[in-house]
């Protein structure tokens, strides 16, 4: 009712005026009838009614919201005043826009990564299980099939445990053969996560038997990208690993966790996971495990439960759980697992941006203050003509808030344009960065920041102005403003402001400095001029080590002949790979002289062949001259540290060098965290675990995220080629890429790219298609 009254008050006022006039007219008519003359009749009628204006004013006031009207008037006045001094306005708006823009942009990322709930049902119940060999290195070592089964049967804190690993397979049946990143999951995986398909159905228990026809689920992104979101995809057959797989469903858009998978298949479809050797081998620790806590079970209880089971297993199978390795279980809530790497950096960035904004506020407050002192005469006049202190204060507040809101709008624009850079940065730290956009929360945040900013930088001048004295009017305004008292106030303010700015500047500078430190950790080797290529093999064709090694040998030989390639190397795992462990493991000499280690944990020497001598030369230019000649066995090169203590290559170069020299006589040296897996290899069940250079060749940094292990258990290997001018890079690149296909077309769809380019790319660059011949 009252809102209606507010908007229709003009009309109702008009109505009232007519009513009053009619009323007076009637009165006058009655007076005439009473025998009064014309003039007296009118006079008495008017007198009897009283003040017409007063009635209308009262009713008008009754129908208005005075506060807002005053605000509106202040606003239009503020706009006029600000336009009169465009220099100040532009400066203030730009300063605030930068500050607010930076804050809003960072908040947008925080909102998308840290604040938005995960797209799983009850995400707080989902936990990530990890196993580490604490006495060997910080790398996670995953779980074996046997372990998953044991934990699933014996744990009481979880409603279910799901297993996962990722591999790269070749998919036939689309337009061209394609390399697809495949998530191999247990049937309950999506139930544990609590997701529903957008199309078709999820993988169910009956799919996870050896006799069941193989099925596939497509990720939403892959479905849209490759099949244009075609709903007829259901039931379509694709050939993978020489078996026909039927598409049964499409997943909703999900974070790229644990990996950016294109398709999902049940464990029984994966030739690696379903092999007898893999299932029977307790030491083949390659799986990621996710669990859903039972309602009401706390993390501590679940952790205790897992520890109990772990101890029990260690007693039952002492061979698989050597004391020297110090295997330990840890559970992490999924939200933390997804964001732990990004959280500190983002919060630090927000802190820095906040400080910068505060600094801008302080500067503007000073500017506005001196402007206000120049306008003190105007203020005095307004006070003299009846304005209250509150009116003056409010008017100045409105002025500063107007500036701040204009800055906020501009800041939102700045935030929108810079967001892409920030998202790309955040994507290196968290898989949640794919779904970041401006939404209502961000707008509200931007508005509040602008409002607070306006209040902050407007309150001091407002306060000073509202205390102006009328005596200013007596003399010249300028002179009075420069009087002793005024000068002291201003001096004090300037001093405070300078001190404040200084503190903020130092704070912001320190923050930037720590950020710079975090970003500029030296990995210890040069990645420029190194090309790399991931070689995924057809698992069914290259099922045994011999054929694989023959193939890789051929690739190596071919690549060596490419003009422009200086040296070529092969590896199964990329050194300092942040997702597959940074090769931060310990070292056990073959002779077992070190008492801390069990000689039984020695590797099968032939697997060390993967670490071709040249790899080190290619990757580590600086050490090459000193080291290369000494190394008969490539593995020696990768031996990196003291037995019990993991070391980054960085900063310990001398150390490493020294050690490898000393261990020259050792028959072989192994990389401890991989030890369990190497044993699997000797059992003939699997093969070397590689992470493509092409996709994850970023060296570990101090802040590098501990992303869940992304192990590609296919017989992927990476080849690295040292490329030298004068041959154009692209020629070498293409030639390297074709060398693998030359041997075995069209299976080996591989991608060759510059190592230092790939360092910047967190995500798998995706399958690259080569036209079939």
């Amino acid at each position, binding site marked *: 009712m009252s809102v209606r009254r507010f908007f229709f008050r003009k009309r109702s006022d008009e109505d009232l005026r007519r*009513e009053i006039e*009619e009323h007076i007219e*009637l009165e006058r*008519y009655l007076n005439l009838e009473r025998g009064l003359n014309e003039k007296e009749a009118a006079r008495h009628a008017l*007198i009897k*009614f*009283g*003040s017409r204006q007063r*009635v209308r004013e*009262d009713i008008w006031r009754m129908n208005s919201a005075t506060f807002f009207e005053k605000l509106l008037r202040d606003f239009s006045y503020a706009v006029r005043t600000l336009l009169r001094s465009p220099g100040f306005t532009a400066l203030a708006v730009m300063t605030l826009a930068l500050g607010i823009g930076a804050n809003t942009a960072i908040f947008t990322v925080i909102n998308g990564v840290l604040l938005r709930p995960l797209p799983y049902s009850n995400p707080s119940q989902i936990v990530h299980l990890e196993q580490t060999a604490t006495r060997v290195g910080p790398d996670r070592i995953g779980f074996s099939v046997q372990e998953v089964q044991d934990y699933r049967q014996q744990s009481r804190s979880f409603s279910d445990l799901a297993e996962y690993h990722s591999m790269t397979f070749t998919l036939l049946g689309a337009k061209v053969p394609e390399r697809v990143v495949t998530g191999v999951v247990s049937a309950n995986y999506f139930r544990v996560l609590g997701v529903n398909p957008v199309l078709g159905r999820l993988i169910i228990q009956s799919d996870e038997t050896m006799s069941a026809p193989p099925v596939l689920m497509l990720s939403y992104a892959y479905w849209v990208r490759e099949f244009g979101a075609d709903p007829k995809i259901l039931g379509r057959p694709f050939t993978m690993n020489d078996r026909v797989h039927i598409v049964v469903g499409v997943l909703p858009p999900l974070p790229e966790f644990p990996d950016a998978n294109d398709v999902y298949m049940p464990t029984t479809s994966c030739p690696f996971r379903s092999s007898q050797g893999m299932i029977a081998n307790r030491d083949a620790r390659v799986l990621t495990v996710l669990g859903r806590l039972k309602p009401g079970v706390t993390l501590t209880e679940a952790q205790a439960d897992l520890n109990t089971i772990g101890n029990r297993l260690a007693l039952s199978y002492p061979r698989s759980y050597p004391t020297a390795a110090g295997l330990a279980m840890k559970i992490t809530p999924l939200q933390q697992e997804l964001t732990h790497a990004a959280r500190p950096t983002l919060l630090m960035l927000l802190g820095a941006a906040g400080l910068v904004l505060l600094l801008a506020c302080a500067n503007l407050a000073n500017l506005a203050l001196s402007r206000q002192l120049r306008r003190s005469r105007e203020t005095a006049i307004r006070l003299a003509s009846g304005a209250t202190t509150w009116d003056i204060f409010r008017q100045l507040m409105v002025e500063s808030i107007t500036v701040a809101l204009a800055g906020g709008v501009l800041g939102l624009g700045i935030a929108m344009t810079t967001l892409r850079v920030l998202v790309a940065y955040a994507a290196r730290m968290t898989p949640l960065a794919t779904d970041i956009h401006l939404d209502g929360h961000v707008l509200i945040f931007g508005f509040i920041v602008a409002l607070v900013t306006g209040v902050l930088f407007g309150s001091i001048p407002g306060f000073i102005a509202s205390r102006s004295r009328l005596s200013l009017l007596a003399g010249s305004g300028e002179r009075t403003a420069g009087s002793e008292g005024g000068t002291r106030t201003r001096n004090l303010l300037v001093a405070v402001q300078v001190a404040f700015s200084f503190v903020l500047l130092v704070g912001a500078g320190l923050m930037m400095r720590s950020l710079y430190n975090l970003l500029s950790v030296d990995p210890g080797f040069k990645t420029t001029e190194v090309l790399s290529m991931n070689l995924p093999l057809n698992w069914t064709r290259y099922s045994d080590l011999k054929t694989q090694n023959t193939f890789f040998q051929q690739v190596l030989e071919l690549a060596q002949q490419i003009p422009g390639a200086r040296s070529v190397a092969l590896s199964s795992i990329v050194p300092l790979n942040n997702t597959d462990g940074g090769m931060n493991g310990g070292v056990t000499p073959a002779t077992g002289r070190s008492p801390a280690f069990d000689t039984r944990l020695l590797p099968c020497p032939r697997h060390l062949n993967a670490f071709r001598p040249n790899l080190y030369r290619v990757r580590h230019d600086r050490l090459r001259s000193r080291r290369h000649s000494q190394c008969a066995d490539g593995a020696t090169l990768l031996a990196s540290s003291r037995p019990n203590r993991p070391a980054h290559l960085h900063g310990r170069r001398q150390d490493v060098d020294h050690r490898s020299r000393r261990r020259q006589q050792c028959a072989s040296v192994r990389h401890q965290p991989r030890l369990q897996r190497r044993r699997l290899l000797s059992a003939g069940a699997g093969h070397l675990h590689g992470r493509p250079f092409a996709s994850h060749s970023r060296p570990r940094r101090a802040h590098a995220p501990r992303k869940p292990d992304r192990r590609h258990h296919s017989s992927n290997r990476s080849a690295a080629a040292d490329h030298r001018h004068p041959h154009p890079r692209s020629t070498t690149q293409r030639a390297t890429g074709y060398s693998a296909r030359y041997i075995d077309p069209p299976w080996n769809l591989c991608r060759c790219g510059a190592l230092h380019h790939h360092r910047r790319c967190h995500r798998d660059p995706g399958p690259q298609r080569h036209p079939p011949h």
Partner: protein
Amino acid sequence: MARFKKTSDSEMLQGTLDMLILKTLVRLEDRGWLSSFWGASENNRKAKFYKLTAGGKRQLTQETSRWRQIVRAIGLVIGEDEA
């Protein structure tokens, strides 16, 4: 002059009353207790008529009974018989 002032004072007082009545009418209408319409008066002039609405009637009954209660209470206090 003094006489004139006196008459105009009394006239002013009377006038204020009309003004107050009009303001009250507007307020009562605003509360939904009155409805108004433009019509013709008995001497064929345009006039605004106010009419009690159902809600207004209810309010009136309520207020009247409350008024009677107060009158009776005051009557009892000053010693009148409850008749």
